[in-house]
């Protein structure tokens, strides 16, 4: 965000954090604290794996004509619950990871970081973790459920499911379910990180530096 204004001496006043640097810093932060990153990502991983498996089974069951209103209602309920649990999990681990780094955030602000830099770094970090967790979760959830369904219905499970799920004229079987799960996972983890990141960024540097963890 290079916002510039010029002072009396004609020197350009600017404070910035280029995107390339933000990405590098967020990535570094994830790799150095890999343990915590894995815990955060596994929260979204589990939620999305469950979502993907439910979506897969719904598609197949619909193809088989076994997708009753009853099953549909129960599935919707399960999906909402699992996503809620996953989101609360991410908010919690983001809060932890932000609290752990108050001092670091305070220091960055002393060095000239704007609040938006802090928020951006945390959002990029959680977006990366969210997409990673969601991708693995979606693939694994859909994959395992596919095997279960194959065992139950045989090859017809997916040819019929393909017919059941049409997207813009294209006949797809599991792809939309997987993509939906990934996008949702990324989105949820960014949403979950907004509040903790914003709270940390708003803290006066003195207060952030004082905190001892």
């Amino acid at each position, binding site marked *: 965000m*290079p*916002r510039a204004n010029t002072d009396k*001496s004609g020197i*350009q*006043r*600017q*404070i*910035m*954090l*280029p995107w390339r*640097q933000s990405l590098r810093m967020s990535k*570094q*932060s994830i790799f*150095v*604290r890999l343990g915590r990153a894995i815990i955060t990502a596994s929260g979204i991983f589990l939620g999305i794996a469950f979502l993907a498996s439910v979506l897969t089974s719904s598609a197949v069951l619909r193809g088989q004509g076994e997708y009753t209103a009853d099953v549909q209602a129960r599935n919707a309920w399960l999906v909402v619950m699992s996503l809620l649990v996953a989101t609360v999990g991410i908010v919690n681990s983001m809060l932890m990871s932000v609290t752990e780094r108050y*001092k*670091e955030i*305070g*220091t*960055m*602000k*002393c*060095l*000239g*970081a*704007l*609040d938006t*830099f802090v928020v951006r770094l945390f959002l990029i970090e959680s977006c990366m973790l969210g997409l990673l967790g969601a991708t693995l979760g979606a693939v694994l959830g859909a994959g395992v459920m596919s095997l279960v369904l194959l065992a139950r219905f045989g090859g017809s499970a997916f040819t019929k499911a393909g017919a059941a799920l049409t997207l813009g004229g294209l006949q797809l079987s599991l792809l939309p379910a997987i993509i939906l799960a990934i996008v949702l996972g990324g989105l949820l983890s960014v949403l979950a990180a907004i509040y903790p990141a914003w709270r940390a960024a708003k803290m*006066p*540097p*003195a*207060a952030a*530096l004082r905190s001892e963890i």
Partner: protein
Amino acid sequence: MSTGVKEYIVRTKDLTKEFVLGGTVLKALNAVHLDIRRGEYISIMGPSGSGKSTLFNMIGGLDKPTHGSVFIDETDMAQLDAFELAWLRCRKIGYIFQTFNLIPVMTALENVTLPMIFAGIPSDEAMTKGMKLLEKVGLAERFHHKPTELSGGQQQRVAIARALANDPGIILADEPTGNLDLKTGKEIITLLKQMNTEQGVTVISATHDLKMIDVSDRVVWIRDGKIERIEERSEIEVRVGEMEGEPA
């Protein structure tokens, strides 16, 4: 510095900071007037809880005063918006802390270049300057080490290099020797003094390390949030002479 040199780089006027603790109001700073000259090495001394660190936070723009104002280069800090305040912290002031406060996930060089990146200096240029600064503090060969792989004294050297990254007018140090042993502490003080004389940077140090008195142009004694007395260099020299007469 150009023709418009003002004598005072930092001025505080009627500076007061109150904290509310369990229903009672505690005055950490009570109407402090302090003028700091450009290029001087000033130590703010006092027992813990005297308000040194609060004063450090106020001068550094890290916290807001309850009343009164801080002027940096005759600019009232209360008038600055968030962007201007960040700019001031980035370009005008270099901070040094008791606990070093390096970013733990970054190497020594990355820590030193971070303020330059915020200032919009291109990456290559920042790297070159960062290496030069690390050389100056004697840590060039350890540039790729993380803070956890460095000793306390080395971390503080990196912090000093980082504080100098954008050629600030002021170095603000909060107990810079507080976590260091005697010898390392002395080295850090010498390094700070060296930067003060060589680069003309104003050093403001909150401390209760008496070794600091030796290099200070002025010593401000603070107690219960008030300035008790200010000693000039000439008065200090007499006292240091007396102290050296004592057995070590």
